């Protein structure tokens, strides 16, 4: 006999699932401290900055998504400085002065990073040059000769006479 799940239990489990799904996705959005902002501009600046600054301990995470304690400290500092009215540039500069350029997730274009920025273009240029050269070389090659039937027979005879070696 087939076991029957009471309808009410099925409805209940569905409801539980529906209730928990959004909770899970909200928890996944932001780590750490619940923050309150009175001004929307502050909130926006904070949200941008925590994604621009790198957690120097975990290195491949922005402080926004990092669980490291240092990242929490840095988020708190960004929050406090934002509320105190510092603009984004000043806060990034503050972090760079302490942790170096490394703290910026997007390296600025400056003397020691120009090669980093230029390398994709240099590689593309190099590839284009190599391609152009190989095309040019192929163009300069003489076209493959077209033999008549008579010539072909002559060649075949010469080949056989010279001991079956391949024609140069």
């Amino acid at each position, binding site marked *: 006999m087939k076991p029957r799940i009471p309808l009410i239990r099925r409805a209940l489990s569905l409801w539980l699932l529906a209730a928990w799904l959004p909770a899970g996705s909200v928890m996944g959005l932001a780590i750490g401290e619940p923050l309150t902002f009175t001004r929307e501009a502050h909130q926006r600046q904070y949200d941008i900055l925590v994604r621009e600054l790198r957690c120097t301990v975990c290195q491949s995470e922005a402080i926004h998504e990092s669980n490291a304690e*240092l990242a929490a400290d840095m988020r708190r500092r960004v929050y406090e400085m934002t509320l105190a009215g510092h603009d984004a540039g000043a806060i990034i500069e503050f972090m760079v002065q*302490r*942790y170096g350029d490394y703290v910026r997730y997007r390296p600025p274009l400056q003397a020691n990073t120009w090669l980093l920025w230029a390398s994709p273009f240099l590689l593309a240029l190099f590839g284009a040059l190599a391609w152009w050269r190989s095309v040019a070389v192929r163009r300069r090659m003489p076209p493959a000769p077209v033999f008549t039937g008579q010539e072909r027979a002559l060649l075949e005879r010469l080949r056989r006479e010279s001991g079956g070696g391949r024609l140069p």
Partner: protein
Amino acid sequence: MKPRLILLLLGVSALLGLLFMGLGLNSRDLPSPLVGKPAPPFMLEALENAEVILTERDFIGEVALVNVWATWCGTCRSEKPLLMELARGGIPIHAFNYRDERDSALRYLNVSDNPYRTIAYDPKGDAGIDWGVYATPETYVLDAEGVIRYKRIGPLTRQLLLDEVLPLIETLRAGEARRMAQS
């Protein structure tokens, strides 16, 4: 055909060499922008006494080390015997007790040696951010004017002390002695 093959080999080996060099680099050894700058200001309670407020001035005066440590940091514990040797050798060592609990830090120092002359208590990592701390232990060398001359992220080793830290301290001390003689 030949020269092109050689060029290709050269290119590939140059790339491999570059990648190999990358393997040898420690990605945690970030250059500190603070080297060459004066010690960042701070105001913190002393670890031993909450009523005593320490500032960067308490670290400045002679060539000294500043060590960032915590009881939860195992590497700091293994580094401490070396610090003890330095302290016994007459090198002043100041410290930040970083993101720690006062009780456990004091208990730890009570049951083992204490190489530190001054300990600033930084439970929330406030001074930590200003000093660019991100991985305990960290050690700074301050000259007599309080300028940061060196920063080591991670534990000190005997080799590192012999190769870099002690010679630097010698040089700084000699410079300081010359300056004192002139004035």
